[in-house]
């Protein structure tokens, strides 16, 4: 007997809401109580953030009894929170860096542009970013001490990911290698870095490394932090890539070898293209983690977005508007990470769809 498959009937939206929230008197009571609690919490916040807020003016306008949130503070400190100590006359340079990063991220996010040509493009972009920030022939040099704000947050994350990737790839391959010593070293590296918090890695980079160097040699503070971040994430990324490598059935590898491909050709042509595509969503998730983790750079005195926002509230003229500063930073982080996580979901669906095809 043949059966006709019918899509299950879908109730209209409001039906589902009603059934979910008010299916019985107890359930309805819980719903109402939750709503009341939300209003009770949200109304004072709304009052503070919108109704009583001071949108423009000076800190004196915010000091009145009735004043709520001081968004005028964010207006006055907007430049500092975004670019920190970068000299104001030269701030078109970090602004250009932000534009460049946004444009490249957008292009790289679309699967239609995925190809190995993106690798040299990104490496070139990192060089351009570095030249724009540090200055080069014709542009006034700016010491890394003056870099800060959002460009630091984004550049450290992106450079961290870019440099961690080859290291992670080698680590992941080494961990599967059948040379005992190489495998042990890779496992030791990965497990040690995954076993300590990132803040410990940063402290080592900040405090121990300069003392271990011969006298007179000095590595730039930001570079030391960047190396720390890179090594830390290479360990996590290695595990993500290893998961991808394990997806590839060993039959494919054996087939490739028996066709006369060298081991490197086998990796390059057969294993990696499939393994890496499989773990792209996981890498996007890890990248979101990197962006959020860069806020730890604040503890070693680097002015990332969060530290710049916090510091802007220590200006005696605008003293103590910490809530506004943190809300601003939170919104920027949220915008970046929410975009990233939605993208990751979309990508997962898209990749799953193309796999099933």
């Amino acid at each position, binding site marked *: 007997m043949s059966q006709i498959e019918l899509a299950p009937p879908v109730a209209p939206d409001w039906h589902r809401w009603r059934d979910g929230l008010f299916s019985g008197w107890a359930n309805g009571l819980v719903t109402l109580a939750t709503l009341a609690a939300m209003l009770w919490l949200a109304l004072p916040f709304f009052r503070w953030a919108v109704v009583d807020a001071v949108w423009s003016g000076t800190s004196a306008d915010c000091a009145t009894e009735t004043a709520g949130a001081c968004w005028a503070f964010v207006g006055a400190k907007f430049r500092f929170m975004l670019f920190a100590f970068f*000299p104001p006359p030269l701030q078109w340079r970090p602004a250009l860096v932000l534009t460049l990063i946004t444009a490249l991220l957008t292009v790289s996010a679309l699967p239609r542009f995925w190809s190995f040509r993106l690798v040299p493009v990104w490496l070139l972009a990192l060089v351009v970013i570095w030249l724009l920030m540090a200055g080069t022939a014709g542009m006034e040099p700016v010491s890394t*001490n003056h870099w800060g704000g959002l460009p630091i947050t984004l550049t450290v994350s992106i450079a961290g990911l870019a440099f961690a990737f080859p290291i992670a790839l080698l680590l992941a391959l080494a961990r599967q290698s059948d040379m005992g010593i190489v495998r042990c070293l890779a496992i030791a590296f990965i497990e040690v870095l995954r076993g300590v918090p990132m803040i410990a890695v940063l402290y080592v980079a900040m405090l121990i490394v*300069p003392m271990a160097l011969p006298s007179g040699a000095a590595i730039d503070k930001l570079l030391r932090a960047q190396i720390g971040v890179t090594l830390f994430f290479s360990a996590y990324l290695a595990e993500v890539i290893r998961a991808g490598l394990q997806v590839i059935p060993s039959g494919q590898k054996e087939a490739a070898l028996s066709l006369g491909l*060298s081991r490197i050709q086998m990796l390059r042509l057969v294993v990696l293209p499939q393994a890496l595509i499989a773990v792209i969503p996981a890498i996007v998730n890890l990248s979101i983690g990197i962006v959020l983790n860069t806020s730890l750079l604040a503890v070693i*005195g680097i002015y990332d977005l969060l530290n710049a926002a916090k510091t802007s509230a220590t200006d005696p003229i605008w*003293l103590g508007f910490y809530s506004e500063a943190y809300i601003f930073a939170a919104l920027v982080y949220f915008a970046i990470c929410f975009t990233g996580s939605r993208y990751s979901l979309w990508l997962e669906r898209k990749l799953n769809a193309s796999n099933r095809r």
Partner: protein
Amino acid sequence: MQRHFTHRKLFTKAFAATAALAAGLIATSALAGETLDKIKARGVIKVGVGTTPGFFSPDSSGRWQGFFVDFGRAIAITVFNDAEKVEFTNSSPQQRLPALQSGEFDILLSGVTQTVSRAFKLGFHFGPVVFYDGQGLLVRKDLGVSKGEELDGATIGVQSGTTGELNIADFFRKTGKAFTPVTIEETGEFLKALDSGRVDALTQDATDLAAKRTQLSKPDDYVLLPERLSKEPLAPAIRAGDDQWLEIVNWTVYATIQAEEFGITKDNVDTFLKSEDPAIKRFLGVDPSLGEAIGLDPKFAYNIVKTVGNYGEIFERNVGKGTALNFERGYNQPWTAGGLLYSPPFR
């Protein structure tokens, strides 16, 4: 065999590339020498600062401002006759001493407390104390107390894990009065306790209390008592081993103190150039013999006062009465006015 060979070659290459990269990234600066030589060769003084409102904080354009920052600029004037040849870098309390030790900074102007163990065990030299801080008491004005002793039976908030807890207990034991300590972990709660009347007073380093007072809902209802329960002398710190650099730091600070004692300010300094007082003539370099004898620009003190002002001006501009911090001079005024600031003679 073959397989192992290519494998190994891949890794050898990778390791060689990494090593070459690392070697390239390590910028070898000139060999360690005297700090002052390095500063002169570099053309800029590297100063480590903290972030406390009024003492060191960036303004909206990202330029460092504050009490300690002005001393950094004064030192740049002594060395280069240019207040801008100084680079300030923020350093957290945990990393500032190692950073000074490793040569990342030439001087710390980050409010380091001078202690005997830091001098002996860590090998630091301290310049003259530029700010006499200490544990203070922030009390509600309507209690009508003017001294810590009068807080008999009061409830006092302390932040946990600080030396403040021990100091306040010692203080009350010494005075024979009773008090109830309320230990509070988090800064926001600490302030709320006073705001809500849960405690009568808060105790912590006076510089911190002055900044926190501004965040209370009605700052003017509270007063920071002039009394100090502990000694926190904040002084510039440098690495041991460069006496000349230390002297430059010393006499830069003394110049600001001496200028205040003479009554020389940023605005009236030029009228003092005509003074007949030989001490003032030597101080301002009208008589250049002193500067020539010590190997500094004879007009260094003049340049400092002309650019950043005397000690009192630096104090009032950054943390004094007109500012949000509203600090009393207290111990931080010249000995002639009953404070602890005393400059050795310029002769």
